[in-house]
């Protein structure tokens, strides 16, 4: 059912997106290059002699020009070989393979909690526009927007784990050890990230919903005698969710950024924590690999968002420009 204009749009977009991943990895390569104390120094430590460093640099191929090394890395990356960590000699692809599912799980649970809170809150705030509930939700969301995620996290640790003892303050349980234990250990970090996302989602949905509720088809639905719940959830929610869907996609980058801090705070072994450690340890290939994964993920999500538009809004499907 996808019309020709939409298909052409998606085709151009795929090309743009490939270019973006390419540019993003090239840029990271250049940025990691300016990290001080190159990998050889980082591996050997401060006590290494000039000669040792020189021979290790040669062994690692660091003497070659930047462009050659990037081309080399890219060629290998295309075959799935992301190189090895300078530090642990582990394969980067294996490390990412172990850690990516943890971060994906964290992000999925976060989105479920965030939408689970924000969708009802947004609907109520729009329906009861300018009432006490609306103002209260507005105040909560401004408060949350003014708090960095790690402070929300520390607040939750203090109340839910130190004072009440309901959740572990940090640490991670593998799902293979215990599914329930895993969810239990993921709940606080996910709730922290979700509370940071909540105001963004709620405010967007509220604004779009208020606009939708003034349209004629809502009046028609009301004239047909449909109940409030039917009108809000059945008629108004879908056309009001376009901005929300876009932002969920764009927010993925923000969420991965948030995951970096929150995984560090809660000692969750995801790619965020891997990235922070790699930066601290000047582990160039690890940084490079994680950025590749994040950039690719971001780009794929954006593509998915564009396709979701087509499903949500018939005007986009038929190439009508609003």
């Amino acid at each position, binding site marked *: 059912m996808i019309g020709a204009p939409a298909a052409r749009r998606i085709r151009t977009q795929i090309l743009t997106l490939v*270019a*973006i991943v390419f*540019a*993003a990895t090239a*840029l*990271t390569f250049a*940025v*990691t290059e*300016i*990290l*001080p104390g190159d990998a050889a120094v980082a591996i050997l430590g401060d006590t290494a002699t000039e000669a040792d460093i020189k021979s290790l640099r040669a062994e690692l191929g660091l003497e070659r020009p930047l462009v050659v090394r990037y081309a080399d890395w890219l060629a290998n990356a295309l075959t799935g070989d992301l190189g090895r960590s300078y530090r642990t000699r582990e394969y980067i692809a294996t490390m990412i393979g172990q850690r990516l599912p943890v971060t994906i799980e964290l992000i999925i649970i976060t989105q479920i909690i965030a939408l689970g809170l924000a969708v009802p809150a947004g609907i109520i705030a*729009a*329906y*009861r*526009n300018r009432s006490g509930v609306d103002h209260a939700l507005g105040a909560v969301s*401004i*408060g949350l*927007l*003014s*708090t*960095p*995620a*790690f*402070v929300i996290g*520390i*607040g939750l*640790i*203090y109340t839910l784990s*130190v004072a009440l003892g309901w959740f572990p303050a940090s640490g991670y349980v593998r799902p293979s050890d215990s599914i329930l234990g895993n969810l239990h250990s993921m709940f606080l970090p996910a709730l922290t990230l979700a509370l940071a996302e909540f105001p963004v989602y709620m405010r967007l949905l509220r*604004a779009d919903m*208020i606009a939708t*509720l*003034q*349209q004629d088809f*809502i*009046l028609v639905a*009301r004239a047909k005698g449909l109940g*409030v719940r039917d*009108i*809000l959830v059945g008629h108004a929610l879908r056309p009001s969710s376009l901005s929300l869907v876009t932002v969920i996609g764009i927010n993925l*980058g*923000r969420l*991965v*950024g*948030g995951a*970096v*801090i929150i995984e*560090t705070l809660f000692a969750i072994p995801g790619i965020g924590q891997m*990235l*922070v450690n790699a*930066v*601290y340890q000047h582990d160039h290939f690890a*940084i490079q690999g994680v*950025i590749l994964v*994040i*950039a690719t993920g*971001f*780009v794929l999500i954006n593509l998915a968002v564009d396709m979701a538009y087509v499903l949500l809004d018939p005007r986009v499907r038929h190439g009508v420009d609003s």
Partner: protein
Amino acid sequence: MASIAEPVAVAHPRRRSRPEFGVVLAIAWILALVVLSILAPYIGIQSPDEGDLLETLALPSADHWLGTDSLGRDTFARAIYGAQVSLTVALGSVGIGLTFGGTLGLVGGYFGRWPDRLIMGTMTVLLCFPGIILAIALVSSLGPSVGNVTFAIGVIFIPAFARIARANTLSLRSREFVLAAQSLGAKLPRILIREILPNLMPALLSYAVVMLGVAVLAEAALGFLGLSVRPPKPSWGGMIAAERGNLAEAPHVVFIPAAVMFLTVLAINWLGEATRRLFDIRAQSL
């Protein structure tokens, strides 16, 4: 059931006679913070670096208004010196974002074609990085200092400002007053700076106010990861990270700096909302 399908009353023009109480409070808090952090070395605030090891993790008292940390250092003094760092970084990074992003967006939006595609393409790539990750990479490569943190956060702000400037320039460049200036033979710099730029300022400035709050939060996140000013120099994020281990025995050493930061960002966001209402900028300009 009131609001379904009933037109919401058009907002009445705001009476300008008396400023809102919340706005006054927000301005007062920020002014107090600015004045204290500038005057800090001259008005007898205790040293932020010297601790009294006999008085660690103390609760607020007459001697130590906000208590002391685990090394017995005065939390009030450290919060004020931390404010110096936060406010400097916030103003500097928003300045960088506004100047460079605004210029790039103006140029891209006005000229269109390949300059536009080149600039906006680069901005999209920059946006592809989670901002905090780019900031972490930049600061860890340049070394933690106020200047480098400001630069790193400023760089991640550029794309957003560029997008706003571009979107608004696009809608302005074919407006009558611009065409009039062009047909009167105005030179390019005049058109860009005297005709278009003043009309971009409301959108850019009200976004800039919001970004001040984001900058404070970003500096705190870097401080939390140990990538803002080097200890023992205080930064809000660093203070919170350093005392995290004492959460169970002495929650106030963590939550007092957190509260100072919260109130500051809240005040900034409040002013941001007020500016937005003043200029009536709609989200679509993003």
